[in-house]
C-alpha cells in the first residue's frame, strides 16, 4: 500500500469530511463505455476533420472573413499607452474626429464606454480573478494599455486617425522585476480600494495580487531531520521561465453590432462564447438575453482567447458609431497588448533518502502577472498543483506562490496553464536529485512516481479541506518504456569529433481533464428523416477538431457513421451551455454530455425500432446504420426509423436526445518526454535530433487529432525551451514587435517530433478518454535541460536555453 493510501485511511477515519473530499473509490461505469478495438466503429478511427475540406479550399470563414455580411461596417484601431506607468492628463481627439471617414472616437469618458472594473479572464462565475481592468484607461500601467479607439470607413483611415490622437501623461516610476516590485519602496501599481479581488493573500503595497500556500505532512520537520542525518540528502535548485507568446495564427478579431432586434450581437474569435456573453452583459449592464455571441471558424486560441480582450472595446465603438464595427488586433498588439504566458521564478528543495525515497518536496514560486491580474492566482497555483501529483507519494510536500505585478504586459491563460513552468522546476529538480544519488533518472522516477490505483492528494495541496483523487488509469510506466525505446536511451553513439557530446534527457508530465467541480457541458441531438443527426453542443472548436471528436462519440452510440452527425458551431443563441475550450475539458466533459445525449436519443430510437421489429427494447443494438435484434438478427435502418418517427401512421415524435454533464472528476493524462541532443563543448551550440512524447490520454477518440495535439504542443514546448522570451527597453517599451523578433520554430529549425499514443482505459471518460491538448506542452524544457546536463555536465536552469548560456556555464566548470 502506498503512503497516500494510508493518508486516505486517516482521512476516512477522521470523520471530518469537507466538501472538497470526494470518495473516489467506486465508479459505476456505464455498460458499453468500455469497448475492445474490434467493438469500436467511430471511436479510435482517423475520421476526417469535419472542416478539413473548407479549410483547404479557403472557404472556412474566420471572423474577418465575415465583414461582407455587414452593411456599413466600420474598421477600428486602438490608441495604446506609450509609457509604462502614469496617469493620462489629456486626450486630444479633435483632429481625429474631424477627419473624413471617421465615425467615432471613444475615450474613457465617452458615454458608450463602461466605467466599472472587470476581469478579462474568461472563467466560471463568479470569476476568481480580480476586477482590475477598465475598457479604456486613464491610469496606465504598461506600454500597451488601451486609452482611446477609433471607428472609421476603412482600416487605413482608422489607423491614420488613431495617430492623430495626442495623449498627455503624468508619468510615474515603473518597476519591471518581480523581486524589486515586492520591495516596500517599489512603485505601487494598483490601489487596493479600486479593485474587487476575491483572491487570497493580496498585498497591493507590495504589488502582490495573490498569495497561497499549502502543506501535506510536515515539511520543516523533514528538513530538520535531514540536517542531522547521514542517510538523508538535501537538494536545492532554482528555475526561471520567460514570457511566451501564444503566436495565435488568427489575431484576436471581433465584429460587434446591434441586430435587427436591437440586440447586441458579436461574431468573435473566442474560446469562451458563454463567458463572454455573461461578462459583456455585466460590464455593459444589459440583460444576458440581449447579448448573442457567435463563434465562427477560429484560427486557434491556446488560451489567448480565453480572455475577453478586445470584445468590450469593439462593442463600445459600435455603440458610439451606431454601426457594425470590426476590430482586428495587429501582430504587434498580439505580442504585447493581448495576453502571454507568465514568467516565473521557482525554488525547489527536497529531502531524499540514500535508497532513493523522496521524503520532502518544498516548492515556492513567484510569477510575474504583468500589469493586471487575470488568471493570476489560478495559473500561479497550477505551477505547483499540476506537476506535484507525479510525486504525490512524497509524505511531506509544501507549495507556496506569489503572483506579483510589474509594469509589463499582461499574463493570462496559456496552454499548459502554469504546468510548463512547474514541470521545468520539478522535473529539472528530480533529475538533479537522481544525479546526486547517482541513480539513473528513469529508475529514480519509477521508484517515486504515481501509478494506477493510487490516491493523488498533491493536486489538492491548495484546497482547504482534505482531498483525494483516485487514479483509475495510468500508463506512465509504458510511456517511459516506449518513449525510452523510441529515443534510444543510453544507446546514442558519441560523435567522432571530441568536442561533440550526445545524450538523451527525459521528463515526466501530467495535467488534468477539466477543472474538477467547475465545469458544465451540455448537448442536444436530433434526428433527421434520413437517419442523420444534428448535434448541438457548446463545445468550442477552435481548430482542435473538437466537433469531429464529438461527432465520433455520438456516432459510436447511435451506430451511425460520424459524417452523418452534423455538428453545429457554438452560438449562444442556439447551442446548449458550455464553459468553453480551456483546461483540457472538451473531450472529457462535453464529450460525456454528448455521449449521454446520444444515449437518450438511442433510447428513443429503440422505442421506434421495437415497434417496427416487434421485439423488446432490451434486445436491440445500434450498429452499422441499423438497429438490430440480437435474438432474431432482424434489423431496421436508421433511415427507416427516421422517416417512421416523423411521418409514421401512429406515434409521431422527433427523436431528440439531450444531456448536461458536470463532474468532480478530472483524471490526469500522463506522459514521458524524451530529447536527444548533441552539444558542442567549445561553443555551447546544440542540435536536437528528436523529440519523443509518449502519452497516455486514455482512449484516443481520433488518433490523427490526438497526434496533432501532441506534435503541436511539443512545438510550443520546444519554443519555450529554446526560443521564447520578449525583450523590453529600460522604459518597459517592448522590443519584440513581430515574428521576426521572436523565436517561433519554423520548418527549417523545428526538430522532428514523434508522438506515441499509449492507450489506457479511463472508466470515468467517454469511451475511456482523458485529455490530450495541454499535457504535451509541459516537458520539453526540463527534458532538454536534463539532456544537456547529461551530455556536457552543465545545468541550464533559466529559459530559453541558448548556446551562450551553455558556453558560459561550461567556462565556469
Amino acid at each position, binding site marked *: 500500500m502506498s503512503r497516500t493510501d494510508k493518508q486516505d485511511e486517516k482521512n476516512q477515519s477522521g470523520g471530518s469530511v469537507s466538501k472538497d473530499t470526494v470518495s473516489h473509490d467506486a465508479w459505476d461505469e456505464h455498460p458499453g463505455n468500455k469497448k475492445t478495438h474490434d467493438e469500436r466503429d467511430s471511436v479510435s478511427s482517423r475520421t*476526417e476533420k469535419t472542416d478539413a*475540406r473548407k479549410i*483547404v479550399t*479557403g472557404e472556412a470563414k474566420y471572423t474577418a472573413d465575415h465583414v461582407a455580411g455587414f452593411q456599413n461596417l466600420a474598421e477600428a484601431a486602438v490608441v495604446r499607452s506609450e509609457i509604462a506607468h502614469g496617469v493620462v492628463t489629456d486626450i486630444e481627439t479633435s483632429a481625429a474626429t474631424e477627419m473624413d471617414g471617421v465615425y467615432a472616437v471613444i475615450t474613457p469618458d465617452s458615454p458608450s464606454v463602461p466605467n466599472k472594473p472587470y476581469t478579462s479572464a474568461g472563467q466560471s462565475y463568479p470569476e476568481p480573478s480580480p476586477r482590475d481592468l477598465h475598457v479604456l484607461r486613464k491610469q496606465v500601467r504598461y506600454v500597451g494599455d488601451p486609452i482611446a479607439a477609433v471607428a472609421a470607413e476603412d482600416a*487605413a483611415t482608422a489607423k*491614420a486617425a488613431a495617430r492623430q490622437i495626442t495623449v498627455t501623461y503624468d508619468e510615474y516610476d515603473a518597476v519591471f522585476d518581480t523581486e524589486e516590485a515586492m520591495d516596500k519602496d517599489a512603485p505601487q501599481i494598483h490601489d487596493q480600494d479600486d479593485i474587487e479581488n476575491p483572491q487570497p493573500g493580496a498585498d497591493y503595497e507590495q504589488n502582490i495580487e495573490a498569495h497561497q500556500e499549502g502543506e501535506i505532512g510536515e515539511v520543516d520537520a523533514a528538513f530538520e531531520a535531514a540536517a542531522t542525518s547521514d542517510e538523508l540528502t538535501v537538494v536545492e535548485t532554482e528555475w526561471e521561465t520567460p514570457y511566451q507568446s501564444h*503566436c495565435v495564427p488568427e489575431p484576436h478579431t471581433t465584429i460587434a453590432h446591434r441586430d435587427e432586434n436591437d440586440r447586441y450581437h458579436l461574431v468573435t474569435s473566442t474560446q469562451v462564447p458563454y463567458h463572454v456573453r455573461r461578462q459583456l452583459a455585466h460590464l455593459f449592464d444589459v440583460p444576458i438575453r440581449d447579448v448573442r455571441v457567435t463563434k465562427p471558424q477560429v*484560427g486557434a486560441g491556446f488560451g489567448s482567447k480565453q480572455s475577453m480582450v478586445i470584445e468590450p472595446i469593439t462593442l463600445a465603438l459600435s455603440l458610439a458609431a451606431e454601426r457594425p464595427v470590426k476590430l482586428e488586433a495587429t501582430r504587434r498588439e498580439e505580442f504585447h497588448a493581448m495576453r502571454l504566458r507568465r514568467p516565473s521564478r521557482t525554488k525547489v528543495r527536497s529531502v531524499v533518502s540514500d535508497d532513493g525515497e523522496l521524503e520532502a518536496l518544498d516548492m515556492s514560486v513567484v510569477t510575474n502577472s504583468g500589469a493586471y491580474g487575470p488568471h493570476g492566482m489560478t495559473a500561479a497555483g497550477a505551477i505547483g498543483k499540476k506537476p506535484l501529483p507525479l510525486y504525490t507519494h512524497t509524505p511531506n510536500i509544501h507549495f507556496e506562490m506569489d503572483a506579483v505585478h510589474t509594469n509589463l504586459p499582461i499574463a493570462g491563460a496559456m496552454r499548459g496553464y502554469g504546468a510548463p513552468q512547474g514541470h521545468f522546476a520539478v522535473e529539472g529538480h528530480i533529475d538533479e536529485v537522481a544525479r546526486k544519488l547517482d541513480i539513473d533518472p528513469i529508475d529514480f522516477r519509477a521508484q517515486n512516481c504515481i501509478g494506477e490505483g493510487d490516491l493523488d492528494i498533491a493536486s489538492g495541496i491548495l484546497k482547504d479541506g482534505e482531498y483525494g483523487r483516485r487514479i483509475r488509469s495510468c500508463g506512465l510506466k509504458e510511456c517511459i518504456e516506449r518513449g525510452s525505446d523510441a529515443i534510444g536511451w543510453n544507446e546514442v553513439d558519441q560523435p567522432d569529433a571530441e568536442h561533440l557530446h550526445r545524450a538523451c534527457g527525459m521528463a515526466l508530465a501530467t495535467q488534468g481533464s477539466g477543472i474538477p467541480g467547475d465545469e458544465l457541458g451540455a448537448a442536444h441531438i436530433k434526428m433527421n428523416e434520413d437517419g442523420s443527426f444534428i448535434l448541438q453542443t457548446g463545445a468550442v472548436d477552435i481548430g482542435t477538431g473538437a466537433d469531429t471528436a464529438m461527432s465520433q462519440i455520438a456516432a459510436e452510440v447511435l451506430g451511425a457513421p460520424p459524417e452523418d452527425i452534423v455538428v453545429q458551431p457554438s452560438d449562444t443563441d442556439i447551442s446548449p451551455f458550455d464553459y468553453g475550450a480551456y483546461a483540457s475539458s472538451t473531450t472529457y466533459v462535453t464529450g460525456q454530455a454528448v455521449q449521454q445525449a446520444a444515449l437518450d436519443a438511442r433510447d428513443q430510437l429503440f422505442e421506434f425500432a421495437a415497434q417496427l421489429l416487434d421485439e423488446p427494447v432490451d434486445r436491440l443494438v445500434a450498429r452499422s446504420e441499423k438497429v438490430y435484434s440480437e435474438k432474431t438478427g432482424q434489423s431496421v435502418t436508421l433511415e427507416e426509423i427516421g422517416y417512421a418517427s416523423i411521418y409514421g401512421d401512429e406515434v409521431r415524435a422527433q427523436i431528440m436526445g439531450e444531456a448536461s454533464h458536470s463532474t468532480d472528476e478530472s483524471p490526469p493524462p500522463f506522459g514521458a518526454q524524451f530529447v536527444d541532443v548533441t552539444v558542442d563543448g567549445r561553443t555551447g551550440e546544440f542540435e536536437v535530433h528528436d523529440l519523443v512524447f509518449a502519452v497516455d490520454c486514455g482512449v484516443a477518440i481520433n488518433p490523427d487529432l490526438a497526434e496533432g495535439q501532441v506534435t*503541436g504542443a511539443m512545438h510550443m514546448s520546444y519554443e519555450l525551451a529554446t526560443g521564447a522570451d520578449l525583450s523590453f527597453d529600460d522604459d518597459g517599451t517592448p522590443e519584440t514587435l513581430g515574428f521576426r523578433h521572436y523565436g517561433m520554430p*519554423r520548418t527549417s529549425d523545428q526538430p522532428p517530433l514523434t508522438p506515441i499514443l499509449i492507450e489506457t482505459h479511463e472508466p470515468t471518460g467517454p469511451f475511456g478518454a482523458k485529455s490530450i491538448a495541454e499535457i504535451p506542452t509541459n516537458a520539453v524544457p526540463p527534458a532538454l535541460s536534463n539532456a544537456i546536463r547529461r551530455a556536457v555536465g552543465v545545468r541550464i536552469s533559466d529559459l530559453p536555453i541558448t548556446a551562450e548560456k551553455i558556453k558560459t556555464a561550461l567556462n565556469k566548470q
Partner: protein
Amino acid sequence: MGTDMEIDLTLNGEAVAFQATRSDSLLDVLRQSGYTGAKRGCNTGDCGFCTVIVDGEPIKSCIEPAIRIDGAEVETIENLGSQDDLHPIQAAFVDNAALQCGFCIPGMIMRTKGLLEANPDPDDEEIRDALSGNLCRCTGYEKILDAVADAADRVASETDMVADGGQVPDSQSCTGCDCYPTGESR
C-alpha cells in the same frame, strides 16, 4: 484614403480590374474583393498566411503593393479544387490530417504549389527549406511535411495520368477527385 486607381490583372485565369489605393497591398485588394482565402496574420511578411502565386512565384501578398500587380498573373487558393473535387495538394493535406485551425493552410498550400511547380520531387530538406517562410502554430509541422511529400507523389502521378490517358494505378486511390474508385472496373 488616397487616390483610387485601377489595377488590371489576370486572377485565377480571368482578366479582372480592381480599384486600389497607393497604400493597398495585394492582400488588401484580394480580401476587399471577396477573395478571403488568403489570411492576414502579421501584415509584415513574416508568417506566410497570405501566400499567393504571382507570375508563377509564391509571394507574401501582405507586403506586395497592389500597384505592382498591374498586368500580373495572380493565382489564389480559390483557383484550386472545390470541396468535392479537391486539387491533389489539397487532398494530400486532408488525407494526412495536416491541418488544425486552418488559418495557415491556404498559404501553405499555395507555397506547396509553387514548390512543386519548381521542383516536382523535393527531398525532405528541400521541403523544410521551401516552407520555412510559412508558420504553423498548431501542427508542429509534422503532418504538413508528410502532406507535402505525399502531394508531390500525387501531382506526379496525376501528370503521369494525363500522359497515359487518365487512369489511376491499381495500388492508388484518390480523395476528392472523380477518378476511378479502387476496385471499380474500368
